[in-house]
C-alpha cells in the first residue's frame, strides 16, 4: 500500500507541473478583448446589493503562491521545467493525414496489434507499444479522412474493442469492431 501511495504522490507531482500553452494564446485573447466594449463598474443598485450580502471571504495566500510560482518559472528559465517540443517536421503527419492515437488496456497480453480498414486487417502491420511495464498499449497512426472499422488483437487470439469509440453496427463475423471517423474530407 505504501508503494501505491508513492505512485499517487508522484502522479500528483506530475499534475502540478506547468502545462505548455500555445504561444499565440495571449495575442488571441488580447485581440478578442480589444473588440469588446470596455467593462463598467457596477451601478448603485448592485453596489447596495453587494453590501447586503454576507460574504464568506477570507484572505487566501494561495494566489500569491501562484504568482510566485509563475515568477519562479519565468526567472529560473522554462527549459528545465517544461519539456520543449521537438521541431514540428519530425512529428507532423504528411499533408492530408491526421495522426490518431489508439490506447487500449490489455491485461496479461504479451503482444497487441491494431487491425482495421486502414491496414488491411493485417496483424503485423501496426504492432502496439506497451507503455512502460503497464498493461496499457498504444499506437499512433497517420490516417486520411474517412471512416474506419478497427479492433485490437491480443496475442493473436483475443479480440478487444475500444470502449471509448462507437461500436460498428455491422458485425458480420461475430467479433465486434469499433469505428473511428476522421474529418477533413
Amino acid at each position, binding site marked *: 500500500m505504501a508503494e*501505491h*501511495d508513492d*505512485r*499517487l504522490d*508522484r502522479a*500528483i*507531482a*506530475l*499534475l*502540478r507541473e*506547468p*502545462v505548455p*500553452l*500555445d504561444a499565440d*494564446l*495571449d495575442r488571441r*485573447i*488580447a485581440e*478578442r*478583448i480589444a473588440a*469588446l466594449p*470596455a*467593462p*463598467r*463598474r*457596477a451601478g448603485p443598485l*448592485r453596489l447596495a446589493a453587494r453590501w447586503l450580502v454576507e*460574504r464568506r*471571504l477570507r*484572505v*487566501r*495566500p494561495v*494566489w*500569491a*503562491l*501562484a*504568482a*510566485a*510560482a509563475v*515568477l519562479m518559472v519565468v526567472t529560473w528559465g522554462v527549459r528545465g521545467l517544461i*519539456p*520543449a*517540443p*521537438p521541431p514540428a517536421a519530425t*512529428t507532423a503527419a504528411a499533408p492530408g493525414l*491526421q*495522426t*490518431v492515437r489508439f*490506447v487500449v*488496456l490489455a*491485461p496479461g497480453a504479451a503482444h497487441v496489434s491494431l487491425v482495421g480498414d486502414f491496414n488491411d486487417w493485417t496483424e503485423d502491420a501496426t504492432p502496439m507499444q506497451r*507503455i*512502460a511495464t*503497464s*498493461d*496499457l498499449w498504444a499506437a*499512433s497512426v497517420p490516417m486520411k479522412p474517412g471512416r474506419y472499422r478497427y479492433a485490437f488483437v491480443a496475442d493473436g487470439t483475443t479480440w478487444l474493442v*475500444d*470502449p*471509448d469509440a462507437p461500436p460498428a453496427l455491422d458485425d458480420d463475423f461475430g467479433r465486434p469492431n469499433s469505428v473511428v471517423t476522421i474529418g477533413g474530407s
Partner: protein
Amino acid sequence: MHTPSTAGYPIAPICVTCLLHRPPDVTCRPVTGYGSVNGPPDGDLVRRVLDGEPDAFGGLVARYRDRLGRYAMRMLGNPADAEDVLQETFIRAYRSLGRCNDPERFGPWVYGILVNRCRTLGAKRARRNRVQIADDVVLARAAAPGDHAENQALRQTLEWALARVSPTLREAFLLRYVEDLSYEEMADMTGASVPALKMRVSRAREELRRLLVEASDG
C-alpha cells in the same frame, strides 16, 4: 521535496508571506494582497481597467494564464479544449469585471469562472483514452527529450486514469491536490458542501490509486 503530512498532502505548500510550511487548514493574511509578488496587486489592475485602461487586463491574463491553463488541461485532457476554455474564461472575466465584488480577490473570482466553464464545456464529457486527432505538440510533449522514462510512462498512464474518473471527482481532486485550495475555497467555487467535497476527494484518491495499480500490474 516530499513533506509527509497527516492531511495526505504530498507536498506542503509554502506561504510566500511568512515563508513557512502552511498546514492545510491555516490561512495567512498577506500584507500586500494577492498576486502582488511581482507587479501591482490584482485589485489595482482591476480598478485601472474599470477606470478606462483596458490594457491593464493584460497584466491579469499574464499573471493567471499558466495556472488556469494547467487546471483546464488536467480537467479537460486536451490542449484545444483547454485553450478554448481559457480564452472564454478571460473573455467572460473581462466582460463582467464590473461585477467582481472584490477586486482584491480577482484570482478566486476568475478561477470560479474557469471551473464553471470547464463544467459546462467539458466536465459533462467523458474524456477518451485516446485523442481522435492527436496534436503534434501533445505527442512531442509525451516524448520530451530529457524526461525520465518512468515519468513519461506515468504521465501517459495518468492521462488514461484521469479520463476514467468522473468529472465531479476529477474536479475535486485537482482543486485539492493540484491547485492547493482549502475545502472552504472549494465550497465557494463549486457550491458543494465541505463534507461532500471531502468525500469526493477521498473517493477520487481511491479511484485513481486503484486505476494506477490496475494499469501497472503488467
